């Protein structure tokens, strides 16, 4: 079992996409992350697991730019990256799907897809003007490319099913040049059938060269979809193991006992 404690051991694909080193983050006197180092490779689906309060959410927030670490460095594709905001992360090709999906319920699909990144031109060089038709067209093209089918795009997403909303949220992330998608409990609110659809979508996207870092409590999903599993406990990284060389029991034991 020694060899599995190995961020040094590259998985299939090999080169490092996102490398976090010695990440420390405290909230008040509470140390949420205690020097965590993690390396996500290109073309890999990495699962991030751990008990409640292990520091998963904090780590995810830091990698996605929602929080800034107290200490530690992040390298993206080998280059030192200063991620101060979700915008910075997005510019580096890192996008995050949050548990609540980050959708505006009263907005339709194109409005959500382009949320915060609205396309506009300047009229007379100064006055911005939304390119609404173009946003609708590009949303259609994007959904077609991802093989996501939706009955209608021009209704509020609050009228849609959980799986459809998830698909909107994921396609939203893929606008632009995205290399890594971070997901916080992506299947938590979905039924079995819809959850499977989202897993299929993740697998399809990973075949197109997109890496995933997925936080999940669902061991079945973790085992079925990931290439490697990273385990956190009390703000420390317990270890990173290749999924095919481990079992659910091993991982559960790492989560509970904090060792391999």
């Amino acid at each position: 079992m020694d060899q599995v404690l190995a961020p040094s051991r590259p998985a299939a694909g090999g080169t490092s996409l996102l490398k976090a080193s010695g990440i420390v983050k405290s909230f008040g006197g509470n140390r949420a992350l205690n020097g965590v180092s993690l390396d996500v490779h290109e073309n890999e689906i990495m699962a991030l697991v751990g008990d409640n309060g292990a520091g998963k959410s904090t780590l995810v927030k830091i990698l996605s730019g929602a929080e800034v670490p107290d200490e530690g460095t992040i390298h993206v594709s080998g280059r030192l990256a200063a991620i101060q905001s979700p915008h910075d992360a997005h510019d580096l090709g890192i996008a995050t799907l949050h548990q609540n999906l980050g959708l505006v319920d009263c907005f339709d699909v194109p409005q959500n897809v382009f949320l915060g990144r609205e396309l506009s031109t300047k009229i007379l060089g100064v006055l911005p003007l939304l390119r609404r038709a173009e946003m609708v067209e590009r949303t259609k093209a994007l959904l077609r490319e991802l093989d996501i089918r939706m009955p209608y795009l021009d209704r509020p997403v609050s009228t849609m099913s959980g799986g459809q909303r998830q698909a909107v949220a994921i396609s939203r992330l893929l606008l632009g040049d995205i290399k890594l998608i971070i997901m916080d409990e992506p299947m938590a609110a979905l039924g079995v059938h819809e959850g499977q659809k989202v897993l299929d979508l993740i697998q399809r996207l990973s075949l197109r060269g997109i890496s995933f870092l997925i936080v999940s409590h669902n061991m079945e999903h973790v085992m079925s979809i990931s290439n490697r599993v990273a385990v956190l406990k009390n703000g420390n990284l317990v270890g990173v193991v290749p999924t095919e060389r481990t079992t659910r029991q091993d991982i559960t034991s790492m989560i509970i006992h904090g060792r391999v």
Partner: protein
Amino acid sequence: MSERIAVEQKFLPDLLGRLSSLARRIFLAGGILPIVLVVAIVGFAIAEPRFLTYNNLFNVARASSFLVVVSMGQMLTLLVRGIDMSIGSTEALVSVCVALVMATVLAGDPNAPWLAIAAGIGAGMAIGAAVGAINGIGIAVFNVNPFIMTVGMLSILSGIALTVSGGMPMYGMPKQFGEVFAYAAPLGIPAPVWVAGGVFLIMYYILNWTPFGRRIYALGGNIVASRLAGISTRLHMVMAYVMCSVIVAVGGVLLTARVGTGEATLASTHVLESITAVVIAGVSFFGGIGRVGNVVLGAFFVTLVTNGMNLLRVPSYQQLIVLGVLLILAVVVDQVRIKMMQQVRAE
């Protein structure tokens, strides 16, 4: 004969059924406003023939323009899931200061009425921006509940306006101010209506055709999602309140031109009326939903009701009761509409 009765018996329920399903569809799509607007116009026209004359409608259009303007301001605060209870006292403070500045500049140089007018309007806009910035910063940065923040400001602004004016009307503005901004009517359309139309066009453009406007809606719809999408939510929230108060200041300037004096008790009914107008227009209290065109109609409707009641000689005290009932009903009906929409969704 019996055939005819049968046809009538079939026809009448059929017609009623169609009418009610049409009303239902209009209600779901546009809220209560189109229905009550038609009911009010037909009702007042039947009860009082003078209601539908050109002169009266001209009067209603002019009288409504003040409320139309401030309601568009109020709308912005509801869009970001807030409220502005201080708009009436903002108008009052603007009125007092506009009058003070104009009178002072005019006293310094009696031959420069336009300089006085420009200085007065500039001061009014600046006060609006400052009030909005204080409201917005209190709410967005210090997390004061919007209702509490703006009720506090209501008291503060009203106190300042009364202190500055000593509780008396303030005279000494150039007569051109009223002539142009209240009584001029280019192309037969009153000046305040022109201004309201201008504010409407700007609001329509900003809310529907700019990234900023879309982010205002996004912020009201889901502030967390907006922040995660990289939108600077605090800045947008503050800007919404600044825009609101500047627009309200425009209303204050117009009203001051209309009454001809600076008044510290101006527009005290505007808070209630603007909230009624905005809610009847289908702007959600929960943020993110509402169209500026409907708000214009909503404010027009509220003025229309007041005007109709005046023509019918309903005493002003009882008009207050009607307005209060209208506001509460509008909110109740909005809730019913949301429930019905969810049912439609479930179907």
